[in-house]
């Protein structure tokens, strides 16, 4: 390859999009490293504290798209206190004062402020795409800045963010000249929406393919919106009334029938099932259906809808579908690749057997859907026999996340632990990259994981294991492990300290409510300049009363990650970086 001029090599490199492949290319030789860095357009940073913006910009001056992830995964479940970190502002500031022509920014679990959004909107004239997932710290005023100032905006995608809704007129802020929108998702906004402004915006966006509405957009508005956007591919429905009048319903049906390109349906945030028939005409084309927020849609209404969706590849649903409903899915959706079943009733009070899913549903799906490769399944009970059957039926799992709602729950028929069941899964699914385990588990399951899960990159453990051996099996065995997150499991210093160098091959380790002590963490940090070892203690008051710290004190939360830029400076007082 070195016989070719640089331009040719660069041209070849431009066909390679995956950031992992790009990283590999850059390691081949100095010449390739240099060529690659000047032509890299998209950069992915899995942990915003592993590197800093200045070094990023120095290495990739021509970058156009940046993906940043901030807080650890368990922040989603309120395990990481507020103000922990993950602030995007320094990144935007640094990019703004450089010559980077940023066009796309994708953030996950970061703290974003209105100030940041405003700076972003003013700094990059070609800015096209903003995707915010599970972020917080901003309001609709920030959205107004984006709408007003980003002249070439194509994509504004807000997924599950905590946004203070000031009920301002951010939708009105899109100038009349803005006609470039291809994707608009504001489903997570809780406040009122200026429906008229929205309709005008949609009407002047002929390229709009994705539109996801929030609760505040009612049925009649939906019909009008769909009439002026028959080219929609991905629709998130807002709210439905309980009993639409026949005229509204007729208009909606007419509008939907024109949407021959519709492939993905979601939302139904406040939906009454009576309106579902309006969507029947498009069901046969759907490849993705997300009803996981639609608490009202269940029973026969749901079944009828699903029976029409023969081409479905992705289904997100609530467990109110029941085992019976999953049997229907298994019979109908032969193309299914990804299934997520979320809990609908957290109180566990309902004795209604139809209202939850069990191992029966899981087995049915595994038997009926040969292409299934990703599953997230919340259920009340499980058995080893079922898991062994699932493993036999579906050796192609890439992601297998099983969450049995009650911690430590054993096989409900044999009362044994579920080690053998999960063991069967990892043994059969040679391509498994992500695994979450639950239920009653000893160390044995981790022995299996260490032995068989060769491709495993992310492992989530909760309320499992017996001794340090469990964690050691995993650390020693899973060569490709990148993220390990553990809570409420009896792993301690011996496991933590056995192989400190391992952590430099991983992105991060999280351990909360385990047996690791302050002393152990200190020893870990001493020998590891390229690791940040963070201890998060929320109840500082207890510790401040005591003058000495006891090294035998157990640590509430430990989060460690590899980094090339040392200790971060923006940690709050209750985060101690060793």
């Amino acid at each position, binding site marked *: 390859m070195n016989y070719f001029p640089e331009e040719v090599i660069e041209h070849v490199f431009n066909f390679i999009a995956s950031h992992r492949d790009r990283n590999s290319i850059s390691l081949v030789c100095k010449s390739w490293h240099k060529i690659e860095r000047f032509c890299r357009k998209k950069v992915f940073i899995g942990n915003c504290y592993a590197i800093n913006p200045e070094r990023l910009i120095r290495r990739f001056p021509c970058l156009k798209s940046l993906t940043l992830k901030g807080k650890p995964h368990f922040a989603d*479940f309120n395990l990481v*206190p507020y103000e922990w970190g993950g602030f995007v502002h320094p990144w935007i500031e640094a990019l703004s004062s450089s010559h980077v022509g940023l066009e796309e920014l994708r953030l996950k679990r970061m703290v974003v402020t209105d100030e940041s959004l405003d700076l972003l909107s003013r700094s990059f004239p070609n800015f096209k795409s903003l995707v915010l997932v599970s972020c917080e710290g901003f309001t609709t005023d920030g959205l107004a800045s984006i709408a007003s100032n980003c002249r070439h905006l194509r994509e504004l995608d807000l997924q599950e963010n905590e946004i203070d809704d000031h009920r301002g007129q951010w939708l009105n802020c899109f100038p009349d000249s803005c006609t470039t929108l291809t994707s608009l998702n504001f489903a997570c906004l809780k406040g009122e929406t200026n429906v008229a402004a929205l309709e005008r915006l949609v009407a002047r966006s002929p390229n709009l393919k994705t539109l996801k509405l929030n609760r505040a957009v009612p049925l009649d508005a939906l019909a009008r919106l769909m009439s002026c956007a028959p080219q929609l591919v991905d629709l998130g429905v807002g709210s439905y009334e309980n009993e639409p009048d026949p005229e509204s319903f007729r208009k909606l049906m007419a509008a939907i029938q024109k949407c021959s390109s519709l492939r993905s349906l979601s939302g139904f945030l406040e939906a009454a099932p009576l309106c579902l028939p309006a969507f029947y005409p498009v069901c046969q084309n759907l490849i993705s259906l997300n009803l*996981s927020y639609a608490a009202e849609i269940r029973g026969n209404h749901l079944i009828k809808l699903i029976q029409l969706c023969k081409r479905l590849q992705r289904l997100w649903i609530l467990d109110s579908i029941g085992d019976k409903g999953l049997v229907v899915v298994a019979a109908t959706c032969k193309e299914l690749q990804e299934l997520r079943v979320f809990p609908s009733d*957290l*109180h*566990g009070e309902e004795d209604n057997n139809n209202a939850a899913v069990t191992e029966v549903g899981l087995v049915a799906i595994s038997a009926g859907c040969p292409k299934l490769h990703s599953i997230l399944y919340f259920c009340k009970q499980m058995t080893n026999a079922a898991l062994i059957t699932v493993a036999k039926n579906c050796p192609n799992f890439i992601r297998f996340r099983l969450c049995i*709602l009650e911690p430590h729950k054993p096989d409900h028929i044999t009362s044994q632990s579920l080690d053998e069941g999960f063991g069967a899964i990892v043994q059969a699914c040679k391509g498994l990259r992500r695994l979450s385990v639950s239920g009653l588990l000893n160390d044995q399951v981790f022995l299996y994981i260490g032995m068989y899960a060769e491709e495993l990159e992310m492992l989530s453990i909760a309320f499992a294991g017996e001794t340090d051996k469990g964690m050691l099996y995993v650390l020693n065995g899973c060569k490709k492990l990148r993220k390990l997150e553990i809570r409420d499991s009896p792993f301690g210093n011996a496991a933590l300290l056995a192989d400190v160098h391992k952590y430099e091959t991983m992105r991060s380790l999280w351990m909360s409510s385990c*047996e690791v002590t302050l002393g152990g963490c200190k020893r870990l940090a001493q020998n590891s300049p390229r690791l940040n070892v963070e201890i998060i203690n929320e109840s500082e008051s207890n510790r401040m009363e005591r003058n000495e710290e006891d090294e035998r004190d157990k640590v509430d939360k430990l989060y460690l990650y590899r980094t090339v830029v040392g200790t971060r400076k923006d940690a709050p007082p*209750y985060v101690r970086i060793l």
Partner: protein
Amino acid sequence: MITELEMGKGESELELGLGLSLGGGTAAKIGGKSGGGAWGERGRLLTAKDFPSVGSKRAADSASHAGSSPPRSSQVVGWPPIGSHRMNSLVNNQATKSAREEEEADKKKVNDDHQPKDVTKKVNGKVQLGFIKVNMDGVAIGRKVDLNAHSSYENLAQTLEDMFFRTNPGTIGLTGQFTKPLRLLDGSSEFVLTYEDKEGDWMLVGDVPWRMFITSVKRLRVMKTSEANGLAARHQEPKERQRNQPA
């Protein structure tokens, strides 16, 4: 329900009880308190059903392997692992459903002449609840509290007092009586509870019915009484306050 809370139960730890009509449980937690390794030792919210046997809850937790009264998954911090956005939505749905069911039950009792009881009903009957921020004067780090998990001002005040004023669980003297917690609601402590409403105004907590309050509250602030000007009606003189303090 309130009386039960105040009387206490002579246990070693103050446990919060919920008098919810939402099906007897709580889906969410206020925030993690530091605890030991065992997950069962955290501060947690109990359901109304647990109240009679709450003394044995601890035993039940440590005996979870033995299978006696299995601890509900909803009582552990961050469990089940559902994203907070989804969790809020779930809890809202259940609250709305219960609110609607209650409304319908109320409607049957009410004549056309009377006002409907539920003054908080919005146009399409939805009730927006969920976690809201709580800040306290002098404390840098805020907390979040789940309004859905409370049924009254007393409940809420109790929770906040636990969050901000307790380093240890409420202690009991040898006589078996509680040391009285600071009272945020009656103006007898040096702090007062305020909230920001939907219009951005800061108001004193407690003036309006609970149901109306939860639909209009955006965030809470535990404010020093000395800073809360204009609340003369509930503010007592320092000397009076001392006299009223429990022994």
